[in-house]
């Protein structure tokens, strides 16, 4: 090469040229650069900045599914910053890895450690503290002092009305703990332990911190409130269809999918650490479809973007199902699909048809008892027609095989010689009959009746039941015509009048019919080619609706029909608020205190808030507005509160406070307390508290929040909370029900109570909307200041929190705080409580024999004389539990004896950790009563790990052996490879540890494979935990029929105009526009982070904002960043407008968990501080969520319960004056 340089010709070049002789360094031949040596001393500045003393591995522990491992840097004893750890065990050579998990929210977390919003000391509201001190000085006894204060309405209201309005004063720990413990003792003594409650969500993300508080509450007999259903993150369709809470693939399994639909799940924002799998899988040829009403962040990655109107997703999914059923089942049978549905779904099962108006309606699953067969479990054995013999036969695997002696070894999906007949169509014995099916799509969600037909046959002669299959009903529901059947059927895909067709969905969703057909076809074709590797990621966007389960069931149907469920790379992937506390049995044992006493009180959060914040008083309609046109009037005159009361007294759902009397009093009744209580209930002298929630003796009195920001985040109906529960300021303007709209069975008191709670306590490390409203705030350690455990369903590892620094100032870990509280409570109980007997009402629980309490899903209300009140059968089970309140602290710090005496329940089997207890005694040392000590967070962590199959191979293998005895299928080999493996806390500190395949979950990690749900079912023929043992398309409970939701059906969003008189959507022509109000997850907060973080605020818009379309903004003259107010009957929000064309007209987004602590001015509407995002929402109960006592429709904690859905809400938006006041 030669040097052919362009000569330097810029002005001054000659000077430069000459200069080279005088200046240091060697110029390049072209004189464009000079090479110098040395002179780098100033580099040291950045080297100093990069230096640190140590790096500690930890993570973040809120309601975030990331479970990311972070390196926390410490210099001079100060946390400086964090970056992601990259030490995840490899996923294998042909796949991406989990490193580096994290997101900007997590990356900004350390700001809190030393931030000006850090809670450094215990705080108590000054007015309360003064009055307490005065009373204590006078009475000398903390419990009496608290009682004195509560007995005076004037003093009580004084501090309640000060809630949230400043005036917090610094207290010391001893005094704060004493006051709190005194409040607990007084409440237990006066009202009962079930008037106390604890709220802390998502244990997987800091198991020890969660378990510590839950353990305290459980030991004293106080309920823990559920969160998954309350957050509306629980997909009710999951228990309905799978009989499982939620079980989903880890994100590494997205990689295995050949077709990926993201449906209401904005992965880059809400699953930031996992999003790369989606981006990378595209390079493997995966096709990506996004369904979202706005141009969501994940749309950037999509090959196709479908944007249905918000809340209409169910219609789109049904129409896709129509295409799949028509083209892949009816026009051309696809063996891969039909084999799957025959074996793994309820489609071949027989359903009775009942005559109605000259046609028929679907009734109940045909059961062995219907065929005159007796014997054990005959009411729970469902029936198919055998294609080979033409006879009705009972295949194995239904619930009748699960809990019976005779079913031992036969609870499995082996079909033997049976070949279940999918359809009766074409069968010689079948004739076409007309069926009536409900529709809800016309008008404003009101029902109407469809006439379609199914082939049916009568079994056992003229008097026998008329039956058809679920499959035949499904085709009728999906409008897939077959020759020779009566009824009205669509003329073509384009037929817009016939519910189920692509043309029909277009009318509701705006998605072109052709596009719907194309995607459905591609999806099914890919499933066929890839053998079930199509996946739907679904999330809050489709799950937070009132009728979410109908939307989800339409999604799940697509996956089940195409054989995608229980496959790597296939199936549903529900990602919102889901978690996987992988060492679940150990955590549950500690949290429920079930090592000392059983059962714990666990309450459905939504119902708790619905009643205690008095939202039920604002229901202006009865539940029959939701009913099917084919319903039987079961909800007539019943409001949401009535449905809840029926559910509670029938033993379906838990209900705490339970009775209108102190359960300690009931437990200590002379003779047989249970019989006595039943007799009193029957006589009406004892009532359920939920039947009169406004009676002072039924109010909740003490509430503790930790790891939670209820009042700045999840409190749907936030303004109802502040008015009724807390008794302070509120911008609520809704009207209460008029006399004719009031409940049938629940007592109405003329004056709605304000200020039910005596004490609101929160533990936090920052000032939140909740801490500001609390009476007592205790300073908590952050995630970088404690020992704890973390896991998630997004990756298969368990790893640790470790303290990078000790808790600064006066902060303590949650574990230490609750330990102190437990000890103080024990001390104060001397002379006030002592040993007591507590009558606990326990609902009929899923995965226990109690789920077979109410055969056929027939509703009978003992209160109305339809049956007798029989505990554990037609009403809750009643159990007397002994509690020594002077030993709460001692029990808190030791592992109790029931662990090995009764074993640990794990999804219907028991784990027997006898060896483990002995081992823990050596590892942890000996505590109270010779039991293993549990007095530090590390010991608690080790105990959790030792008592769970996922982290203890011996227990996993043992559990599988127990399961084998029931299923008759070999499974223990799945865990055998790790039988000797015991994960310890130290292991999880060293690196993330892969978990062991365990019967606690439904999938397998064996051999290092990616976890996905239900592979134990599809590969090892273990039944689903449902009535038929298969995945359900059909649900036959009386209330489900009443709602018209026996089959997947489209139900549009609730009509807030009709229900509450809100304006209709659209501009009013002057200064207001009414819009759909959605609260999707925020890019700059929640998860591992909160809205007040300075870094996140700097990267976003610096405060509350509402995204809106240019059309809606123009309609009311709003420009980007203008101040606006959003107003509806529930409350008022003041925020900045973000105007963007990525938003569809008619819909606004106020991203989730926007608090009122930062940059929120006073509103023009009320003159008071603006609200949080949930100030505009409220709760409405859906009766289907309250069902219990019936197979998979039975309660378990965070498994089934009413959801706190909030997506159907609307609001008015106005431009306001642009000069704001703080």
């Amino acid at each position, binding site marked *: 090469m030669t040097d052919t340089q362009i000569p330097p010709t810029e002005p001054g070049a000659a000077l430069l040229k000459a200069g080279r002789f005088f200046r240091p360094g060697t110029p390049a031949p072209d004189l464009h650069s000079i090479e110098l040596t040395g002179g780098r001393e100033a580099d040291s500045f950045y080297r100093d900045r990069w230096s640190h003393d140590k790096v500690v591995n930890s993570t973040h522990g809120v309601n975030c599914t990331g479970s990311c491992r972070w390196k926390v840097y410490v210099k001079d004893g100060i946390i400086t910053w964090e970056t992601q750890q990259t030490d995840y065990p490899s996923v294998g050579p042909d796949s991406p890895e989990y490193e580096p998990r994290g997101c900007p929210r997590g990356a900004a977390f350390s700001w809190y450690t030393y931030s000006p919003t850090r809670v450094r000391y215990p705080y108590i509201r000054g007015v309360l503290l003064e009055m307490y001190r005065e009373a204590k000085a006078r009475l000398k006894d903390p419990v009496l002092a608290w009682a004195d204060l509560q007995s005076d309405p004037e003093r009580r209201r004084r501090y309640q009305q000060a809630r949230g309005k*400043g005036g917090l004063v610094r207290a010391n720990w001893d005094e704060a703990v004493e006051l709190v413990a005194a409040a607990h003792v007084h409440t237990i003594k006066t009202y009962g332990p079930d008037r106390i409650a604890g709220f802390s969500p998502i244990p997987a993300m800091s198991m020890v911190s969660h378990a510590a508080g839950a353990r305290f509450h459980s030991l004293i007999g106080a309920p823990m409130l559920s969160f998954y259903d309350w957050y509306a993150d629980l997909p009710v369709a999951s228990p309905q269809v799978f009989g499982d809470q939620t079980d989903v693939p880890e994100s590494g399994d997205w990689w295995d999918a050949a077709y990926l639909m993201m449906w209401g799940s904005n992965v880059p924002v809400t699953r930031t650490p996992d999003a790369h799998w989606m981006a990378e899988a595209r390079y493997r040829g995966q096709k990506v479809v996004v369904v979202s009403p706005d141009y969501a962040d994940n749309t950037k990655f999509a090959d196709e973007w479908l944007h249905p109107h918000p809340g209409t997703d169910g219609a789109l999914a049904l129409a896709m199902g129509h295409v799949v059923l028509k083209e892949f089942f009816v026009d051309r049978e696809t063996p891969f699909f039909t084999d799957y549905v025959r074996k793994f779904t309820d489609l071949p099962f027989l359903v009775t048809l009942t005559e109605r108006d000259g046609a028929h309606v679907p009734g109940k699953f045909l059961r062995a008892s219907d065929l005159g067969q007796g014997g054990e479990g005959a009411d729970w054995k469902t029936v198919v027609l055998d294609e080979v013999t033409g006879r009705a036969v009972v295949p194995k695997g239904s619930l009748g095989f699960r809990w019976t002696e005779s079913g031992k070894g036969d609870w499995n999906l082996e079909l033997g010689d049976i070949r279940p007949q999918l359809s009766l169509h074409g069968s010689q014995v079948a004739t076409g009959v007309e069926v009536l099916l409900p529709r809800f799509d016309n008008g404003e969600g009101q029902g109407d009746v469809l006439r379609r037909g199914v082939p049916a046959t009568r079994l056992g002669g003229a008097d026998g039941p008329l039956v058809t299959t679920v499959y035949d009903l499904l085709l009728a529901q999906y409008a897939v015509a077959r020759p020779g059947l009566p009824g009205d059927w669509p003329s073509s895909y384009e037929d817009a009048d016939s519910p189920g067709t692509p043309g029909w969905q277009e009318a509701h969703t705006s998605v072109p019919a052709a596009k719907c057909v194309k995607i459905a076809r591609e999806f099914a074709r890919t499933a066929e080619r890839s053998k079930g590797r199509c996946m739907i990621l679904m999330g809050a966007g489709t799950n937070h609706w009132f009728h979410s389960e109908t939307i989800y069931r339409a999604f799940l149907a697509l996956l089940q029909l195409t054989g995608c469920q229980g496959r790597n790379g296939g199936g549903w992937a529900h990602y919102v608020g889901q978690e996987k506390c992988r060492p679940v049995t150990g955590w549950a044992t500690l949290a429920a205190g079930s090592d000392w006493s059983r059962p714990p009180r666990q309450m459905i959060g939504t119902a708790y808030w619905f009643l205690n914040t008095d939202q039920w008083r604002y229901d202006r309609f009865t539940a029959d507005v939701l009913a099917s046109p084919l319903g039987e009037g079961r909800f007539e005159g019943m409001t949401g509160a009535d449905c809840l009361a029926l559910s509670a007294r029938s033993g379906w759902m838990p209900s705490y406070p339970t009775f209108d009397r102190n359960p300690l009093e009931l437990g200590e009744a002379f003779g047989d307390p249970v019989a006595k209580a039943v007799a009193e209930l029957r006589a009406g002298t004892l009532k359920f508290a939920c039947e009169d929630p406004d009676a002072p003796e039924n109010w909740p009195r003490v509430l503790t929040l930790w790891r939670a920001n209820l009042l700045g985040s999840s409190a749907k109906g936030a303004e109802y909370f502040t008015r009724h529960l807390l008794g302070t300021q509120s911008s609520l303007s809704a009207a209460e029900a008029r006399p004719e709209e009031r409940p049938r069975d629940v007592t109405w008191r003329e004056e709605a109570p304000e200020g039910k709670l005596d004490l609101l306590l929160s533990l936090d490390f920052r000032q939140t909307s909740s801490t500001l409203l609390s009476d007592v705030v205790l300073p908590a350690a952050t995630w970088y200041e404690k020992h704890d455990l973390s896991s998630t369903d997004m990756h298969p590892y368990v790893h640790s929190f470790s303290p990078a620094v000790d808790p600064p100032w006066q902060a303590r870990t949650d574990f230490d705080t609750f330990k102190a509280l437990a000890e103080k409570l024990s001390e104060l109980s001397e002379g006030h409580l002592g040993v007591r007997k507590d009558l606990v009402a326990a609902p009929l629980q899923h995965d226990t024999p109690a789920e077979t309490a109410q055969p056929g899903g027939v509703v009978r209300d003992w209160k109305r004389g339809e049956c007798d009140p029989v505990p554990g059968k037609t009403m809750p089970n009643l159990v007397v539990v002994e509690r020594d309140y002077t030993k709460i602290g001692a029990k808190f710090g030791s592992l109790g004896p029931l662990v090995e005496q009764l074993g640990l329940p794990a999804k219907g089997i028991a784990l027997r950790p006898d060896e483990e207890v002995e081992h823990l005694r050596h590892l942890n040392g000996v505590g109270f009563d010779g039991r293993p000590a549990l007095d530090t967070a590390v010991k608690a962590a080790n105990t959790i790990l030792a008592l769970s199959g996922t982290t203890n191979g011996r227990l996993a293998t043992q559990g599988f052996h127990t399961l084998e005895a029931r299923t008759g299928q070999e499974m223990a080999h799945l865990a055998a490879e790790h039988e000797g493996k015991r994960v310890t806390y130290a292991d999880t500190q060293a690196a993330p540890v892969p978990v062991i395949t365990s019967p606690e979950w439904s999938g397998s990690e064996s051999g290092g494979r990616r976890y996905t749900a239900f592979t134990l079912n599809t590969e090892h023929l273990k039944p689903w935990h449902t009535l038929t043992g298969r995945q359900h398309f059909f649900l036959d409970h009386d209330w489900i029929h009443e709602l018209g939701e026996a089959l997947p059906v489209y139900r549009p969003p609730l009509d807030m105009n009709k229900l509450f008189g809100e304006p209709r959507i659209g501009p009013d022509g002057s200064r207001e526009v009414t819009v759909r109000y959605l609260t999707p997850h925020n890019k700059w907060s929640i998860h591992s982070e909160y809205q007040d973080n300075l870094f996140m*605020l700097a990267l976003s818009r610096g405060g509350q904002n509402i995204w809106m379309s240019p059309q809606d903004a123009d309609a009311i003259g709003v420009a980007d960043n203008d101040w606006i107010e959003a107003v509806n009957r529930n409350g008022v929000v003041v925020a900045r407008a973000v105007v963007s064309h990525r938003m569809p007209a008619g819909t606004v987004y106020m991203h989730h968990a926007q608090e009122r*602590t930062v940059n929120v001015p006073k509103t023009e509407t009320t003159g008071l501080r603006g609200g949080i995002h949930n100030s505009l929402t409220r709760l409405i109960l859906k009766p289907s969520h309250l069902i219990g006592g019936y197979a998979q429709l039975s309660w378990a904690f965070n498994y089934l319960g009413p959801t706190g859905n909030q997506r159907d809400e609307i609001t008015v938006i106005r431009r306001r004056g642009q000069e704001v006041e703080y």
Partner: protein
Amino acid sequence: MRPMAQIAMVMNLDKCIGCHTCSVTCKQAWTNRRGMEYVWFNNVETRPGQGYPRRYEDQERWRGGWELNKRGALKLKAGGRLRKLAGIFSNPELPEIKDYYEPWTYDYKNLTDAPLGDDYPVARPLSQLDGKPTKVEWSSNWDDSLAGAPAYGDLDPMVERTRQQASDKVRFEYEQTFMFYLPRICEHCLNPSCVASCPSGAMYKRAEDGIVLVDQDGCRGWRMCVTGCPYKKVYFNHRTGKAEKCTLCYPRIEVGLPTVCSETCVGRLRYLGVVLYDADKVTAAASVKDEKALYEAQLGVFLDPEDEEVRRAAESAGIPYDWLEAARRSPVHALISKYRVALPLHPEYRTMPMVWYIPPLSPVVDALSESGHDGEDAGNLFGAIDTLRIPLEYLAEVFTAGDVGPVRASLEKLAAMRSHMRALNLGEEPDPALPAAVGMEPGEIEAMYRLLAIAKYDDRY
């Protein structure tokens, strides 16, 4: 030939999820201190959008980078030494704080300390510059994810230029929505105009790895570098009065760790590696007349680490053996020179930037399927590129001085890779015509796939 080694970066924008984790970890590590509140060595822009500082790409306004004089030689766009000297006390081409943003905080203490009042206490915004109450009206990321795009999107200089080429291509309407994210750090250019702009000689490019730095002792705070850098990636610390910039995390690079922004990139889209180049060719390459030829010209500056002659020359130039080996294994070299899927950012600034980008692919088939064709069909695959939701013309304005050819070629390779791998994924026979159509062997496509998709830690850095 004068071989030199440089640590360079490639970011695969097709994988960027716009999460800003890189910005936050970088901010925490490097600029979370007084005087630097407004500074983001690493920032992520939503495109279309104005960027940070606002409209930094408008070089008619800011005069950053180089241009050719009448004789075809390079000169600083902001003018040579004499002009600099004249404007040394009041540089008119310097962005003001409002062009970045006025950093703010909140009165957080009020939450804890507020006395008992008649309403909920709140933390109101305060300026970080003067501590007084302020209104939050702009930030480094104000237009994140198309926030306010109908109001401000037209001000994106690249939107203006794209519309000059194809007037109907960029509309801020719901159905036409598109966006992508552009993370940016200092380009550590081969021909750095910031260094050339410094009157104090305080800026330098390190000989061993090409990192461009400000000598904090030598800096006199003239801020000519701020003007000179067309990417506006040199910042003024208003507390120390010195210029500061991205250091490519040299304290980490020197001990074998990737930069903070790379290691913490959750999208796994950043690649770091050694690139060998011929220092003698830089000036000529930066001086080619046609702006659209600058991309090819810069490729011509890079040296092939497999070439025996290059290796010998490198050895005699003092480049250590392990650096030569690193250059061979360099993912950056592979993506830029071997597969030619990565492109420079604004080559027309003539600084020879060394942070390159793979353009974003998706979504491709949307527009095509509207017309009844399936963009996934091999036959339509390349036609689909022209119907990208993100206009090719826009990408070309960002990466290739307006030449859509290289952008299309890069995207065609990605599309061919997806199609080829889809067949393998489904256990079907791949069509050999596809790799051939983009000038690649099947094996080469699969190797590129591994680098882009599987992308193990050790393969990225």
